[in-house]
């Protein structure tokens, strides 16, 4: 794999949460949420990150987009250390989609405001002649891209169903023209029939914009369907990593094997 193709590289990433005790709040022990993780994501790739609750997968996602500071380790985005990038610049490259569509949109703001804000931010550095009207047009285009009619810009989040809200969240991420999207359990709180719609949308967007994804999930079926490569996480460490089909067919780590054998098989 040539390194020009590398979009993101993570080296020995650690996040320890201190457990503070006593009046002087000294850390007496650490919860090693992420404990020395290294991996990379190539351009145009979907990398799966699976693990059970508490394995540290969400913590990795938050560190990548700058919501948490790593205790140790480096995150290189296109060979640049993200810790030296300003958050506003980083946001243009790396975006995140959340699990819960009901809390990922501000209930007090209209859809147009939520997405329009991202559109405006994105254009801040370029031409400033983007007037209100242009922002509105761009917002409507984005909504159509994610499969919603443009006229919903004046509606508020509570007027939408879970799947539709997830689409709005995706549109907000897209508005920043990102190259890598961290999708943290993007479908796990959606109904089965809606899950498939969103998974298809994500893969369409990948083809259309040449996006890459880090797909964080506990759902091994989703990973099997979507990801080219997969990492299995447990207790803050990556226990197995590889091409999805080979990991699924010949798991090497006993934990991966246990995980895979726990999926209820469909008689299909």
């Amino acid at each position, binding site marked *: 794999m040539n390194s020009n193709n590398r979009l993101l590289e993570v080296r020995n990433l650690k996040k320890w949460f201190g457990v503070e005790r006593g009046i002087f709040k000294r850390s007496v022990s650490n919860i090693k949420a992420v404990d020395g993780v290294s991996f990379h994501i190539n351009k145009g790739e979907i990398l799966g990150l699976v693990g059970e609750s508490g394995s540290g997968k969400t913590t990795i996602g938050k560190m990548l987009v700058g919501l948490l500071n790593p205790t140790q380790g480096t995150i290189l985005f296109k060979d640049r250390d993200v810790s030296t990038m300003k958050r506003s610049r980083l946001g243009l490259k790396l975006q995140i989609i959340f699990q819960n569509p009901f809390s990922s949109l501000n209930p007090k703001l209209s859809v147009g405001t939520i997405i329009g804000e991202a559109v405006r931010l994105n254009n801040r550095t370029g031409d400033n002649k983007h007037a209100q009207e242009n922002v509105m047009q761009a917002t409507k285009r984005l909504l159509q891209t994610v499969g919603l009619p443009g006229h919903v810009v004046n509606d508020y989040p509570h007027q939408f169903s879970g799947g539709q809200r997830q689409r709005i969240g995706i549109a907000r991420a897209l508005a920043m023209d990102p190259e890598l999207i961290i999708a943290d359990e993007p479908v796990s709180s959606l109904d089965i029939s809606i899950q498939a719609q969103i998974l298809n949308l994500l893969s369409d967007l990948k083809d259309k914009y040449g996006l890459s994804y880090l797909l964080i999930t506990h759902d091994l079926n989703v990973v099997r369907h979507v990801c080219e490569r997969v990492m299995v996480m447990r207790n803050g460490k990556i226990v197995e990593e590889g091409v999805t*089909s080979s990991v699924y067919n010949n798991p090497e780590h006993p934990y991966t094997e246990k995980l895979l054998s726990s999926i209820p098989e469909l008689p*299909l």
Partner: protein
Amino acid sequence: MEKTNIILEIKNLSVEYRKSNKIIPALRDISLTLDKKETLGIVGESGCGKSTLAHAVLKLLPETEGKITSGEILFREKDSSRIDILKLADDDLRKIRGNRISMIFQDPFNSLNPVFRVGEQITEAIRIHNNAGNKSKGNDIELRNRVIKLLELVQLPNPELIMDYYPHQLSGGMQQRIMIAMALSCNPDILIADEPTTALDVTIQKDILDLLKELQKKLGLSIILISHDLGIIAQFCSRVIIFYAGTVMEKAPTDELFHNPGNPYTKGLLDSLPGKSGTAAGEHKRLKVIPGQVPDLTDLPDGCKFNPRCSFKIDKCSGKEPGFIALNKNHVSRCYLANELK
């Protein structure tokens, strides 16, 4: 179908919720039967009414909001007499609840009272149903032993210790085992499991479901397993009922449902599942999807409730709602085209 084998029969059950002057038809005209010692699966998406059904069976709907508008829930007692749970007086209803029919819920942590020890919570159920009002010493020791036996039954280590724990001191999987022990404390005939593993990790989910399966064999339980996960249903249920928008779409034996679905909705659900074992991993082909959204119960379409999203739709689908059409003796589907889908 052998009539005598039916332990629970629900006939034409309808439930409405009332919220700020809106009437929400949560369940419409549900009929189903549960055989002795079988596991019946109920599948559906959010808001389809599957949990409402579970609560309605024991009349646990929130008093001010939920109202059972019609129907019968017939429970066959050990002496073969049938009683309609909906017609029971409160005192008699309580003799059914937790005693003959018990339940476990989705979120074990919130389902256990945080301020009482788990042993106490189990004991309470036993005490209520055995009319063991006298708290004599011998009785207490007897009860304690019974609780320990139950905890052993659900395969918890160190039951003597664990029974004096508070819920927050246990992991999710252990909490659900406590819930199961509590549900089984009075040797019920029926166990209703409402999404019992949704809040748990996949490896724990497997342990819990295996435990339920084992207990069912051991104790001869009849189980209603409610889930949104078709995989779980496929593995643990002998028969499946598909819910959609408060009504039953299809009832069939599990194998038949998965291999020969008789309803476009069921077919759509099966097609939209990612990661089927047959497909090569990482292929990420587009999934076949059911278009549109899960319908709003206050604004249901005319005719078949699935018709706006259905790819097989014909004219009469939006006219009169179809009744059940039999594909065979054990397999019915609410679809005009039930027999022509293939």
